[in-house]
């Protein structure tokens, strides 16, 4: 009898270590974004910061929010050396406009590059709470295509570092300017 009670208690001990599992933890790797890092064209090993870069997806009116705490137009601007942009989990291409020196008073400095990304998609199971995620693989033939725009490109060289977009802690594309 005592043994049985001990066994039940052992079970109860096991229960005490349990956690609620129906809320998707923000740290769980789910659908990843495309990570682009910027490098200096003259010294290719050196990371270079962009100035007031704004990224707008095709068909969208607002840019991607890079700075959540900022107000007005500045929240769409970044001056870092890497960006993360979402891909479309329901179609195989996405087109973005990369506007350098966005909102500058000197109109000559503003430079827009339009790039179309081509990729394949795969849906993978994550957990009960998070459901599924989509992982991407950049097309081997044409991972990106420059779209015609009015000015000369500011992105001089674009290089695929990692075609498999599964995590956000690594660079997928390198841009030299």
């Amino acid at each position: 009898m005592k043994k049985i009670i001990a066994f039940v208690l052992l079970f109860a001990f096991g229960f005490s270590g349990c956690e609620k599992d129906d809320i998707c933890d923000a740290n769980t790797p789910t659908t990843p974004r495309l990570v682009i890092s910027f490098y200096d064209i003259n010294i290719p090993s050196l990371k270079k910061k962009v100035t007031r870069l704004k990224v707008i997806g095709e068909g969208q009116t607002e840019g991607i929010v890079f700075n959540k705490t900022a107000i007005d137009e500045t929240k769409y601007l970044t001056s870092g050396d890497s960006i993360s942009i979402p891909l479309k989990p329901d179609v195989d291409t996405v087109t973005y406009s990369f506007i350098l020196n966005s909102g500058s008073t000197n109109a000559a400095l503003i430079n827009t590059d339009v790039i179309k990304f081509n990729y394949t998609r795969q849906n993978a199971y994550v957990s009960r709470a998070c459901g599924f995620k989509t992982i991407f693989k950049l097309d081997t033939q044409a991972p990106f295509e420059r779209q015609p725009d009015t000015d000369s490109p500011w992105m001089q060289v674009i290089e695929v570092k990692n075609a498999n977009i599964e995590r956000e802690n690594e660079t997928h594309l390198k841009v030299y300017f």
Partner: protein
Amino acid sequence: MKHILKYIFSICLLFSVFLAQAQDTTVTKEIIQEKTKSETKKPIVKEVLKDSIPKTDRYGLRVGVDLYKLTRGFYDKDYKGIEVVGDFRLTKKYYLAAELGFEDKTTEDTRLNSTATGTYIKAGFDYNTYENWLDMENLITVGLRGGFSTFSQDLNSYKIYNPNPYFGELPVITEGQKYSGLSAGWLEVTAGLKAKVFNNVFVGFGVQLKLLVMNTKPSGFDNLYIPGFNRTYDGSFGIGFNYTVSYFIPLYKKKVIIPEIKK
């Protein structure tokens, strides 16, 4: 904070072990004292007992059905199930016990909708802790079971989790996919109650704590519901409940040996 709560709870559980033991010893002491008192007072009663018709225990097979699973299908459109229960009395205290069932359950989570269908068997023993008076045949049992289930899962619909919905929310994907040939095994600790309501008819209820020991997961998905085991959690534990009505088929009788009180 979460961890502190967990520790407090665990410590409380640990103390409860000592609590149970402490009570045990005091109770036995009292009984001994009572026994010594009664022996001197009632020698006549003992003699009467010996002369009277000897008490017999009935042995046999008890079969029943889980009413909870059976009736749930009427009000829960996502559930269909049946469980047949049976036990056979081996000794005065021990019973061989088994459950056999079928379940079809649709689980609706916030991002997933899946249906698990399959059969299961559970077998083990029950130990009756209840001291019956005269010809009462009630049971308060604790027991152990091993469970095994074979089943299939249908992924009915799912959502893609996208933490950056820049292009808007994604629609639900209703792409039917079936994962079959799945199996799972688990251990159960049960606690239950069975009361004789009239003649050979018993009603009872029981709770089960389950520990998953074997689980073949489909590639690219998970077993969210296992028939007989119920919902799965991140860990390997589970819980269950049943409410049974059963009929006792008496097979043979055994005389009860009244243990003589030794000095």
